[in-house]
């Protein structure tokens, strides 16, 4: 037909080709008597059964018992009994071990045939090695089981929702969270949606929108009615599953019970608002009373009528009043610092700020008058939030309060920092000194040393204010050799731009 001479294959040649084709496809054949004696076996079978080491050719296997060629892992003679029963057994997955102990699986197609001469019933077997496929399937099953175990034990609800069919899967944790079992919800695939929409009317509209093309994964809180009648709050994280045309066919997601979390958050918020309200009312009213007291004391002290001991008592009362107001100022700062809108960094006249601090300190602590030194450095502006003055004052006051023998020696100076963009404000005191172990603790809120009075607020507020100003504060010893000689608080602040 195509010009080539016609070639006719012999039966023997055809047989070789068939055998090689079967071998290539991982298929083997053998035939044996019902007593197990092998009458025929090809190379493919030899290879699948992995008995090439025992029998160097298919012919060598003839006359041997089939049960000596493998290790049975299931019921012995199972295949023979099935064939006897049905005459033909198709697609039987047979598990066995090789003589070397290796686990294998083979797909069997077996049927009864007869010896042409004797008419004896024989078993003809075609086997295909499916070990790799079975190992993959087992690994997959194991992985699925592991995943299922995770899903079953997950505290959150895992859900799959089909746009056409409704609820397709819901994990067992739904029982603990909603009171409904998975079976109850799966028996009516629309029930879960009906329940959710009854408690959260906006859900129906949101769901319709979610089914529109272009919907992307999202997070939403929804109210769901618990079986006991109470409402629970769930956080839903949902991912849409799409078909080839980008149409949404299902949703998969996680529903997390956030009821307790939300209740706790609301309680905390309520308590915080209440605390702020009390603080605000208290500070406002107390400050007004203090203003009246302070003003009237000032009026008394302004006139000439008050002298001697009475005058000294009025001065003392006035000083304590100012200290009380100073404490109120610190309490007022806490909520102010939390609100970033109050903490805008601006350009601050540092010299004027320090002079104000010194003036306040001398009002409250006249005993510091002789040894509170400040080397004024005018025309220096730094970046800082509005509260910077309070931060610096607190550090000066800390030095006065902890002075040795109640005789404060405070020196305040401004120095250039290692970077031209910064300055260092150094406040040195004659307190008992701060060891290296304690230094990091000093700026923590409510830190107090020994039996000293106070709330432990001042330095923690100072650090917060300085950091919000874009600066930092650290402590060094006044004397490298002797920590007890006092401390130097070094406040590093950024110069305002163009103000070098």
């Amino acid at each position: 037909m195509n010009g080539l001479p016609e070639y006719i294959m012999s039966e023997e040649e055809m047989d070789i080709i068939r055998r090689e084709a079967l071998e290539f496809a991982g298929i083997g054949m053998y035939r044996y008597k019902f007593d197990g004696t092998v009458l025929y076996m090809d190379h493919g079978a030899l290879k699948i059964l992995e008995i090439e080491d025992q029998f160097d050719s298919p012919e060598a296997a003839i006359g041997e018992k089939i049960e000596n060629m493998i290790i049975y892992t299931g019921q012995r003679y199972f295949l023979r009994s099935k064939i006897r029963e049905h005459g033909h057994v198709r697609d039987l997955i047979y598990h066995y071990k090789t003589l070397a102990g290796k686990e294998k699986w083979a797909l069997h197609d077996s049927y009864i045939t007869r010896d042409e001469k004797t008419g004896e019933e024989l078993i003809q077997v075609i086997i295909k090695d499916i070990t790799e496929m079975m190992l993959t399937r087992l690994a997959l099953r194991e992985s699925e089981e592991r995943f299922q175990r995770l899903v079953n034990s997950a505290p959150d609800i895992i859900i799959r929702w089909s746009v056409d069919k409704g609820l397709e899967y819901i994990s067992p944790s739904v029982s603990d969270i909603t009171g409904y079992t998975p079976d109850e919800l799966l028996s009516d695939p629309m029930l879960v949606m009906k329940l959710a929409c009854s408690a959260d009317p906006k859900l129906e509209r949101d769901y319709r929108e979610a089914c529109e093309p272009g919907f992307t994964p999202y997070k939403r809180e929804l109210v769901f009615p618990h079986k006991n009648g109470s409402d629970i709050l769930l956080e839903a994280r949902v991912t849409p599953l799409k078909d080839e045309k980008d149409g949404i066919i299902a949703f998969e997601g996680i529903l997390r019970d956030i009821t307790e979390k939300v209740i706790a958050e609301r309680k905390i918020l309520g308590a915080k608002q209440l605390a702020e309200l009390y603080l605000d009312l208290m500070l406002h009213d107390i400050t007004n009373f203090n203003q009246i007291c302070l003003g009237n004391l000032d009026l008394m002290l302004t006139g000439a009528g008050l002298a001697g001991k009475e005058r000294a008592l009025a001065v003392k009362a006035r000083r304590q009043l100012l200290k009380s107001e100073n404490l109120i100022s610190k309490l007022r700062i806490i909520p102010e610092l939390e609100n970033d809108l109050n903490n805008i960094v601006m350009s601050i006249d540092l010299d004027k700020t320090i002079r104000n601090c010194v003036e306040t300190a001398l009002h409250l602590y006249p005993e510091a008058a002789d040894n509170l030194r400040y080397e004024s450095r005018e025309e220096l502006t730094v970046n800082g939030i509005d509260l910077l003055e309070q931060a610096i004052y607190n550090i000066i006051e800390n030095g006065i309060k902890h002075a040795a023998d109640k005789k404060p020696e405070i020196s305040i100076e401004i120095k250039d920092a290692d970077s031209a963009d910064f300055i260092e404000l150094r406040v040195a005191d004659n307190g008992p000194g701060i060891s290296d172990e304690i230094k990091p603790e000093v700026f923590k809120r409510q830190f107090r040393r020994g039996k000293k009075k106070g709330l432990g607020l001042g330095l923690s507020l100072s650090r917060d204010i300085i950091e919000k100003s874009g600066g930092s504060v650290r402590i060094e010893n006044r004397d490298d050799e002797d920590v007890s000689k006092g401390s130097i608080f070094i406040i590093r602040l950024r110069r305002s731009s163009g103000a070098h």
Partner: protein
Amino acid sequence: MNIFIVDDEAELVDFYINAVELDGHIVVGTAADGEEAVKKYFELKQRPDIVLMDHRMPIKNGIEATAEILNVDADARIIIASADRSIRDDALMAGAIEFKQKPFSLDKLLMNIIEHALLSETCQ
């Protein structure tokens, strides 16, 4: 100087009166809330040189009252005094010439009044 005092705390109003009168100033009127302050301000025969205004008061607060007064009399010179520091920017935005945080000493109050009075005279 003519001073108009607005505060809902009667004892505080008394102190302000004593303080400014001690320094030779005249209290031309007082009010106990923002609404009364606006009404009385425009009823005064002689406009005050300085209004000393509290912020947190019933009916109408100090910032609202300040804005209303300045809306009609742009030359009004109002000092807002409050314990609440957080309203400072709002007070200045409303047109107050100064925000004073309570409590303040007598010296500082009088010094402020004098400063603003002098400034007022210079401007005139």
